[in-house]
C-alpha cells in the first residue's frame, strides 16, 4: 500500500451502520447501529448464528449492498461501490471459468498500472506461495476445491487491497486442506499486512486465526467484540490448551443461552 494514510489511525470505520430488508411490507433489521473500528493489519473474525448478518456485513463493506443508514469509511473515504480497495473471497470461490489459473490471478492487476513484466512476476510469486505453479495453465474446472480456493485467495490478494473480506471461505473443505489454507492465509496476511475480515461459523477457526472476534446477534441486536489473547505464532496444538477451550466454550455458551 503506497499511499500516505497514517498507520496509527483506524483504517476501516463503521459508524451506526444499519442494514434492513423488506419482508411482506415490514422492515426488518439485520444489522442495527453497528459501530466498529479496525486498525491497519488487523485480523477480525466475525461469528454468529446463521441469519445474523455476517454475510450482509461483508457485502455492505464490499460495496455490493447499500445500508439503510450509517456509514463505512476506508481511510476516511466513504464506501459506496466495489473497488480494488476491498478484496472479496466468497464461499463459492467464483473463479472466472473462462480464464486459466494465472489469468484469474492476474485479473485485478490488469486494472492497475503494472507493466506486463511486473504482472508476470507478481503472478509467478503467488503461484509459488500457493503451490500451483505447475497448474498455472489449467482452467478452474480442472482443479479440486482446495486448489480453487487457493487461486481465489491469490487472485484477491494480488492487487494488494488494504482490506480483504472472506466469507466462510474454507467451510467446504476437508480438515486437512483447511489447515493448509489457514497457513497460507496467515502467510499472505503477514506478507502484505492486509486488514482482514473473516466470517466463519467455526469458533475454533476464529480463535486460531484472528486478533479479535466480533460477535453478531440475530435481528440486529447489539454486538460485542472479544480480544483474542493468544500470542503468535499459534501452533495447532493450542486448540487443546485449557485457555483456548475456555474461551471457545464462553463464546459458544453465549449463543446457546440466547436461543
Amino acid at each position: 500500500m503506497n499511499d500516505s494514510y497514517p498507520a496509527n489511525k483506524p483504517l476501516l470505520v463503521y459508524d451506526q451502520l444499519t442494514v434492513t430488508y423488506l419482508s411482506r411490507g415490514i422492515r426488518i433489521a439485520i444489522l442495527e447501529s453497528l459501530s466498529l473500528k479496525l486498525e491497519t493489519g488487523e485480523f477480525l473474525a466475525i461469528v454468529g448464528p446463521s441469519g445474523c448478518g455476517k454475510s450482509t456485513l461483508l457485502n455492505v463493506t464490499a460495496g455490493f449492498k447499500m445500508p439503510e443508514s450509517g456509514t463505512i469509511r476506508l481511510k476516511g473515504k466513504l464506501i459506496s461501490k466495489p473497488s480494488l480497495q476491498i478484496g472479496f473471497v466468497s464461499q463459492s470461490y467464483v473463479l472466472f471459468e473462462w480464464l486459466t489459473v494465472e489469468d484469474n490471478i492476474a485479473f485485478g492487476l490488469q486494472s492497475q498500472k503494472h507493466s506486463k513484466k511486473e504482472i508476470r512476476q507478481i503472478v509467478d510469486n503467488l503461484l509459488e506461495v500457493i503451490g500451483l505453479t505447475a497448474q498455472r495453465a489449467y482452467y478452474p474446472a480442472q482443479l479440486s476445491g482446495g486448489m480453487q480456493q487457493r487461486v481465489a485467495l491469490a487472485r484477491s490478494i494480488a492487487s494488494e487491497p488494504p482490506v480483504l473480506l472472506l466469507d466462510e471461505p474454507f467451510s467446504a473443505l476437508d480438515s486437512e486442506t483447511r489447515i493448509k489454507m489457514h497457513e497460507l492465509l496467515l502467510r499472505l496476511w503477514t506478507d502484505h499486512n492486509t486488514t482482514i475480515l473473516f466470517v466463519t461459523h467455526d469458533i475454533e477457526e476464529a480463535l486460531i486465526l484472528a486478533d479479535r472476534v466480533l460477535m453478531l446477534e440475530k435481528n440486529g441486536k447489539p454486538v460485542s467484540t472479544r480480544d483474542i489473547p493468544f500470542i503468535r505464532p499459534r501452533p495447532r496444538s493450542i486448540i487443546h490448551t485449557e485457555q483456548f477451550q475456555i474461551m471457545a466454550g464462553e463464546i459458544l455458551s453465549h449463543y446457546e443461552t440466547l436461543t
Partner: protein
Amino acid sequence: MKYKAQQFLKICAPFALMIFFWIIANRYSGVNPALLPTPLEVGNALKEFAISGNLLWDILWSLRRAALGLIFGGLLGLFIGTITGRINAFNWLFSPLFNGFRALPPVAIVPLVIVWAGLGESGKVFVTTWAAFFPVWLNTHSGVSSVDKGIIWAARSLGARGSRLLFGVTLPAALSQILVGFRLAISTTLICVIVAEMTGAYVGLGFRLQISYLVFRVDRMLACLVVLAIIGICADRLFSLVTTWLFPWIKLRHEPR
C-alpha cells in the same frame, strides 16, 4: 482396431435401421409407391443431381444464404440480446415486440418479404437473418441477464468496470447460453432457407425440393431432404468442434476431473 470397428458400426446402425424400416414400408404398407419411393430410387435421384451439377450449386447457394443469415442475424441477436438483457428500459420496451415477432412462422413472412424486397438474394438473406436472430437474441438475453451476481461482484471488486466488465466478464460468463442460441440458430436458418427458396428462386435445395414436388417427383424431394439432413448433421458437428477449440473451458464443465 476392434474399437474403431465398433465406433463405425455405432454410427452406421441408426441409418441402417431407418433404411430397413423404409424398405419394409415400401413392401408391406400398401402406400402409393409414387408417394413413398424406395431407397434405391432416392439414391438414383441423388446420383442424377450430382451428375447434372445441380447438386453442387444448390448446396452452395443454400449454404451461402444460410451462412449470411446466421452471421447477420447472429451478430444482431448478440448485440441486441446484450442490450435488452442488461438495460432494463430496453428490456421492457423491446422484448415484448421481439417475442411477438418471434412467434411468426417464417412460412408466413416469406410472401411478405417477396412483396417488399423482391425475388433477389436480399429477400432470401433477410428471411435467414430473421430466422437466426430470434434464438440468438433470446438466449443471449437469457444468458446475460442471469449471470451469477457473485461473478459480477467478484469482478467489480477486482476493478473491472464498463466495457471490461461487459466483454471480459459478463459475456464470457453467459457464453455457454449464448452458444445454445447459436446452435439453435443453425437449425432454424437451414429450415428457413428451404422455405425462402420455394418461391422466386432458380437455384438452391429449397427450390429443387419445390420443383420436384411440382412435377410429382417424390424421389427427388427425398433426395433433397437427405442432403439437407446430412448438411444439418455436419453443421452441428462443425459447430461443436469449433466452439470446443475456441472455448476449451465450456466442455470442461461436464468432464470429471
